[in-house]
Structure formats: C-alpha cells, structure tokens
C-alpha cells in the first residue's frame, strides 16, 4: 500500500514538475524580444554630404550610431578601425560607452569623445584613451554601397574588420 502511494506520489510530482518546467519555458519566451523588434530593419545613411570632423548620430535598432568623416589632421586618421567610403575615411560605431552604455559627447576641437557618466574617453576611431571603458566603441555590422552606408548588414569591410578582431 505504502509502495503504491509512494509511486503515485512520484508520478504526481514528476507530472507537476513537467508542468512547472513548461510554465518556466513559457515565462522565458514571454520575456524574449518580440519578432517585430528582432526584425527591425536596416538603416541606410547617405554620407555624400558629410563634412569633416562633424559628428552625425543615426538611430539603428534603437541605438545611436556615430558616423563621422574623419579629417586628415585628426591623430586617429590612420586607425585601422576607420571605414573607407570613396576617398574618405569614416568613423562608424555604436554610440554607447562600453562601460555602462551612456552616450559619449564629441569634442571636435580635441578630436575625442568624453563619456558624461564615468569620465571614459575615446579617440575619433573609438579607441579607449581613458578607462573605465574596457574596450573600444563597438562597430555595428555595416555594408558600403557607393556613398551609402547600410547598417545591419555585413559587408566586405566589416568582415575584414571582424576577422582582424577590432569590431567589438
């Protein structure tokens, strides 16, 4: 009798446990980003009218993306993280500090970004000049099409930068 009751107890426990696991999975999926969010389209930026050392902030998947034509007298002009579009070098990066996600402010006369939250600094290729940010500003997936920059697609230059390990 007791064996039978134990067995029934275990079956009940296992069945309820399965249900709990299912409910947990459903809860997890409910918290997932929605498909419409995931499928957020690409952002196309025309850079033909860009001026040197003038920062543009585009919105891509809800995040600010910095796009700037880097002037030849900027100390960061030779940096390998810059993107070649036509004859010009462009700085492209997600404009969120890699420390805790604040938006750094650009100071054109100093050619650098300073984060308002914890004082991190980046040069105009996104390299860290002063901690706490642990790594350079992240380069988003991009593709160059003529004078257009497509954010959200992996083009040849992006793949090269990725292979060189400098995108993130």
């Amino acid at each position, binding site marked *: 009798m007791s064996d039978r009751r134990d067995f029934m107890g275990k079956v009940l426990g296992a069945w309820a446990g399965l249900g709990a696991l299912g409910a947990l999975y459903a809860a997890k999926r409910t918290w997932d980003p929605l498909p419409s969010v995931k499928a957020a389209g690409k952002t196309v930026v025309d850079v033909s009218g860009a001026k040197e050392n003038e920062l543009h902030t585009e919105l891509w998947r*809800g995040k600010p993306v910095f796009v700037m034509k880097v002037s030849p007298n900027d100390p960061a002009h030779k940096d390998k993280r810059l993107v070649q579009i036509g004859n010009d070098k462009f700085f492209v990066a997600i404009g969120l500090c890699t420390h805790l996600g604040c938006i750094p402010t650009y100071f054109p006369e100093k050619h650098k970004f300073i984060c308002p*939250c914890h004082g991190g600094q980046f040069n105009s290729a996104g390299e860290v000049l002063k901690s706490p940010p*642990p*790594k350079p500003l992240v380069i988003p997936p991009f593709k160059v099409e003529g004078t257009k920059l497509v954010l959200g697609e992996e083009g040849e230059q992006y793949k090269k930068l990725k292979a060189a390990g400098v995108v993130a």
Partner: protein
Amino acid sequence: MAHFDPNARPFSHKWLNERLAIDTLEKVLAKEYWIPKNINFLWAMGMVLATTFGLLLISGIFLLMYYIPDTKQAFDSVNHTIMQEVGYGWLWRHIHGVAASIVFLIIYIHMFTGIYYGSYKRGRELIWLSGMLLFVTFSAEAFAGYVLPWGQMSYWAGMVITNLFEGFSSDFLGGHLHFPGLVEWIRGNYVPSQAFLGRFFMLHVVLLPLVIIGLIVLHFGALRIPHVNNQDGEEIDFEAEAEKWKAGLRKESKVIPFKPVFLSKDVFVLGIYLTFFFYLVFYHFEFAMDPVNFDPANPLKTPPHIYPEWYFLWSYEVLRAFPKNPGLIAFGFAQVIFFLLPFLDRSPNVAPANRRGLFKIWFWVLLIDMVGLTILGKLPPVGIYTPFGKAFAYIFIALWLILPFITKAEKPIGGK
C-alpha cells in the same frame, strides 16, 4: 466537534470567537508576544518600516488609477494627469516619492541598529537573512518604480543598471562571463523601450510587492522564537519572565507584552516619525524628485551626469571606483557581503559594539566609510574625488575581509 452556540448574536464577540478564534489569535500574536523592557527607540524602526510600506502601498494604489505604462503616455500621465488634473494626485505622488526615499533611510538605521547590538547572532540569523532579502527586494522595487515616469533619469538609470547584467567584458576569462543576450532579454529589446516599461511596471506593481509582503511575513516569523534582542544582548528566559508578568509581578519581569505596552511605545515613536514624514511630504518633497527626471526620456541624449538615488550611491561608488571587470567584482561583493555578516562575525558575544573591543572601531569605520562612499557617489568622477572614491572602496572591502579575524580574537564577555 466544535460547539456553536445557537443563541449567539451574529458578529458578536462570542459568535466570532466560535468561528475565528479571535481571542486566541490576539493572545498569540499580540497580548502574549513578549518584548524585553531593556530597549530604546531604535526598536521601533520595524513598525516605522511597516507603516512606511503601508503608505507606499496606499499611495501606489491611487497612482495606479491614472498612471499609463506606455512610453508615449507615461511621462504625461504622471507629470500632467496625476500632478495637475487628478484631485490630490500630487499628494499621492509626493507621499510615494518621499516614502520611497525615506524607507531606505529607516532600513539603513534598522540594519545598523542590528549590527551595533549584534542582533544577527545566536538564533537570530534568519531574521538578518530575511531582512537582507527584504533590502534587496526593496532595492529592486525602488529601481523598477523609478523607471515608470519615463523621464531622462528613468531611462538612463534603466539603461545603465540593465547593462550591468552584461557581466564581464568579452575578453575576460574567454568571454564565458559575458552575456550581451541577457541584457536584451531583460529589456525585451536592444534598448529600454515599451517592452521594458511594461515588464518593469508589472514588477513594480504586482510581483515585487507580493514578494515583499511574503518576506515581511517570513521576517516576523523568524523573530517569533528568538525574540527581539535587547540593549545588553542579554539572554532572557522569555517563558519565565512572561509568567512573572502574568502573575502580576510587572515590575520584576524583564518583559512586556507587545499589546498594549510595547505598542504604545511604538505608536509614540511612530507619531514623531510621521510628523517628520508629512513635514517632508508637504514642504520638502523636492529632495525626492530629481529635476533631470522632469525631462521626458530621450534615447539619443545622455544627461551630463547620471547618478542613482542617494540610497544606492555607496554601492555605485564601489562599482565606479574601479575599471569595468574589477568594478563588477567589487560591486557584486558589496551586494552580497552583508548577507554573510552572521557567519563572518566569529565572536560568540551578543553585545553592543561599544563593549566589543575592535568591533566597536570596525562598526564606526564601516558607518563612516559608507557615508563617505555615499557622498563621493554623488560627486562627478573628476580630480581628487577619484582617488578618494578608490580609497573608500578599498576600505569597505578590507573591513569585511578583516571582520572574521578581529571577531575571532575578541574576548568573550561575561564568561559565565
């Protein structure tokens, strides 16, 4: 078989007693729940906290009637509808904002009272642990609530705090402790947005309050058997002392019943507290209302200086005193270390800190260090503040590392 008197008038005392045992309930919960005589006003902080939680709950219910958890409407539903249109809407908001801030002041007083008098030892470990769980849940509740008005500080605090869940940077330990996906999962989007506001609204108004209420019950339950501590850490035989009281030896007994004796003292302290509280609500509510949060959320503009509310500043300062990875370790340390207090204090003494040798110094240094961290956390991370912040953060960590050693070396008091 229970006996029900057919002649008892409905809802009369006898009628209720037969059905709900109200006399027994009152006896067990209040009239024969014993509190030591040897206590001071700091022992009233529990009731002060319970009352403040009640104020938060009531004001929150009224705010909930008009608040709209929609990124396009949230800001106006608070700053226009509730503040300008709803009759006395400002009262609920100011009570809610002031109580949310002051509740942490009382929590810290309550915590440091417990640390000072050693009220986390000798059977009282679960009181301490359930209290720490309450502190953490209140912190989460406060953060979730701060997001709701969808102002600049709401948005950017949401951004910064959820980013902490990214863990360590991708080049640390082979990236095994780097979870960018977790951040997006928590937010339900790449950045704080509608999904984020919706789920933090749910957490703030339903899930976390339920958890808090459950933990309060656990906290009270954990208090029942060991009873509250007293000013000398004296081990009292509560049963024997209670018998004295019941036999009429009220002067000789070391204890008093919760109701009505302790309650009358509690209510007195509560009266002073509420006078102060409503003074703040009516005349100085602005300390709990950050001006930056009166700008609507703008995902493309970080406010020049982001800082948390005052009660998070000490742990925030520990976080930002270091570069990202060590900062995260130090922050994690600061979050969990208070939980371990009953186990890190190796001394058997339950006594006020001023009788415990080195522990006395430890206590006051910890208190001053945390006040220092709080002040530095509010200042921008420039110039002399940076090395000071670092020093205070190191002192905080060092204090906890030496605690087991100084308490182990402590001489037993009394020596029965």
